[in-house]
């Protein structure tokens, strides 16, 4: 539990104020959800449309506690499991940071793809974090990371079958029911495709949103990697997924790996965004509108300034897309 009631968020400095108007886009997402009428309390808007946040990393945490010199970023995303201690130093720092910045909570180990279901203790800790920081967005992955009692700390791939869709849908339902809100599910970076798969990733994710009312987190870097490694047609992916289900976009870097005979793109989250990913980002914004975007850099974390520079570049691209495409501009609010 956070030590005291969170005061109103203070406006930061040096970045455009968050829009509070209701967004046309969010209403369309909410209309989709109403088909299922899950009875969740619906936020009128995340308030993050058209803005670019960064991932909060422990090496930068203290910079966000200096009230006289707050880094200019409109929102922050945190890795949920880093704050599962039900207290302690990390948790205390996050509570303080959440007083000043809107937060997005991004889980990595709920294991939505596990055939033996969600671990109640894990979901409870996620729920108590969500209760504490009142995030604007909550997201997880189309992946599994646990089998039996063991956690593998990696986002493992799923055969995309009807059975898997049943499993993931049930796990997403359970999560959303416990949290009392919808979550976004992220497309993972792929290294393996399975012969037993009966549908494309885009089709699978689209059906998942139809069945559970969840939204999607489009990781443009992951899509780019899966395009290169698995031969997914990224343009087709963008055209299959309905525009109203994407609630957030991730940007990150990758590196070359594999062997000379079989090159693979490796999702390291430890490098600058590449030109190919920027290009796919423009296509994504053009297709889905000015979705809240986040710079994700998890390993070999550089200085905060480097992250802010990447965020500012994404913000400029957003502005360009918004100017050049009146259609996507409609979603800017």
């Amino acid at each position: 539990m956070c030590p005291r009631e969170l005061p109103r968020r203070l406006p930061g400095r040096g970045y455009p104020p968050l829009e509070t108007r209701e967004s046309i886009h969010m209403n369309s997402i909410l209309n989709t959800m109403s088909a299922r009428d899950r009875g969740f309390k619906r936020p009128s808007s995340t308030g993050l449309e058209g803005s670019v946040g960064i991932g909060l990393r422990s090496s930068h945490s203290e910079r966000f506690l200096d009230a006289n010199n707050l880094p200019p970023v409109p929102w922050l995303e945190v890795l949920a499991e880093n704050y599962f201690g039900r207290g302690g130093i990390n948790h205390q720092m996050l509570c303080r940071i959440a007083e000043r910045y809107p937060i997005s909570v991004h889980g990595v180990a709920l294991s939505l793809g596990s055939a033996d279901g969600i671990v109640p203790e894990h979901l409870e800790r996620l729920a108590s974090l969500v209760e504490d920081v009142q995030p604007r967005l909550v997201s997880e992955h189309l992946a599994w990371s646990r089998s039996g009692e063991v956690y593998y700390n990696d986002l493992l791939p799923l055969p995309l079958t009807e059975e898997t869709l049943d499993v993931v849908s049930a796990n997403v339902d359970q999560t959303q029911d416990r949290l009392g809100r919808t979550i976004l599910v992220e497309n993972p970076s792929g290294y393996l495709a399975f012969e037993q798969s009966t549908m494309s990733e885009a089709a699978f994710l689209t059906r998942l949103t139809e069945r559970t009312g969840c939204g999607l987190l489009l990781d443009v870097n992951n899509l780019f990697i899966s395009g290169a490694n698995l031969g997914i047609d990224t343009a087709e992916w963008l055209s299959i997924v309905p525009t109203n289900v994407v609630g957030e976009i991730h940007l990150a870097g990758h590196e070359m790996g594999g062997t000379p005979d079989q090159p693979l793109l490796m999702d390291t989250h430890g490098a600058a965004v590449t030109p190919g990913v920027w290009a796919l980002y423009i296509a994504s914004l053009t297709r889905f509108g000015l979705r809240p975007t986040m710079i994700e850099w998890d390993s070999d974390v550089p200085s905060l300034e480097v992250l802010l520079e990447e965020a500012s570049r994404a913000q400029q691209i957003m502005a360009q897309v918004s100017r050049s495409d009146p259609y996507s501009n409609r979603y800017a609010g």
Partner: protein
Amino acid sequence: MLDEFQRRFASGLLIGTLNGSAPEGLSVDSLRFGVYAHNARSSLTKAIENAFPVTRQLVGVDFFTAMAEQFVATHPPREGWLSAYGGSFPHYVAHYRPAADLPYLPDLARIEWARVRAASAPDDPSLDLKAFAAVPPDALENLPMSLHVAASFVSSPFPVFDIWRAHKLADRDKQLTQVDLAKGTQNVLISRPGVLEIGVALLGPGDAAFLTSVVGHLSFGVACEAAVLAEMGYDIGTRLGDLVVVRAFAAIAKNIDVTS
């Protein structure tokens, strides 16, 4: 079907050579399977490195990595949050044969794990001296005491506090001071004295005896006796105050709270 697939897939993630073939019954490319196996192993090994930086510094990167990789393969995490991962590593180190000639290594690792725990433990209330002072004298003798959930007590036959501190200082000064192993026993308290602070303190024999009793769930009276026996002229009032300041103790349990 999916359940069976996941068990097969998982069986090859942490065990076996990285360049080997994918698990039996899984028709996938070995190189591509190896990416997942590599990610799982390296991220978990990294988690152990992050939790035990001084132990790693002491034995060297290659030795530590080999030890951590074997630990990961044999003791994978049972919780999905990494702040909980590594609690059994000090015990593993104690039985790791290649490290047998470094008998103080497990206690050093215990200090490091205690710091991880201190950082992430819940914000439970700690012992309040006012509440303590309000306990009637006749109840004090049998008052059960316990360590705060963020606090740990490490008692070692080796000068493990000096070893830990020498390596921490070496980070800053780029020079490792010599530690005299003949110095013998050291007792260390790891706790969270402030909201954003972890403390590692060397204790005298009286404090150590007191905390040994507390860890053993003995009463305040017994702990005091042990402390006075262990250290001539042990001043219970002052020492207790110092230990309370660094939040060594849990708050007095509600059912024996006689202040109301």
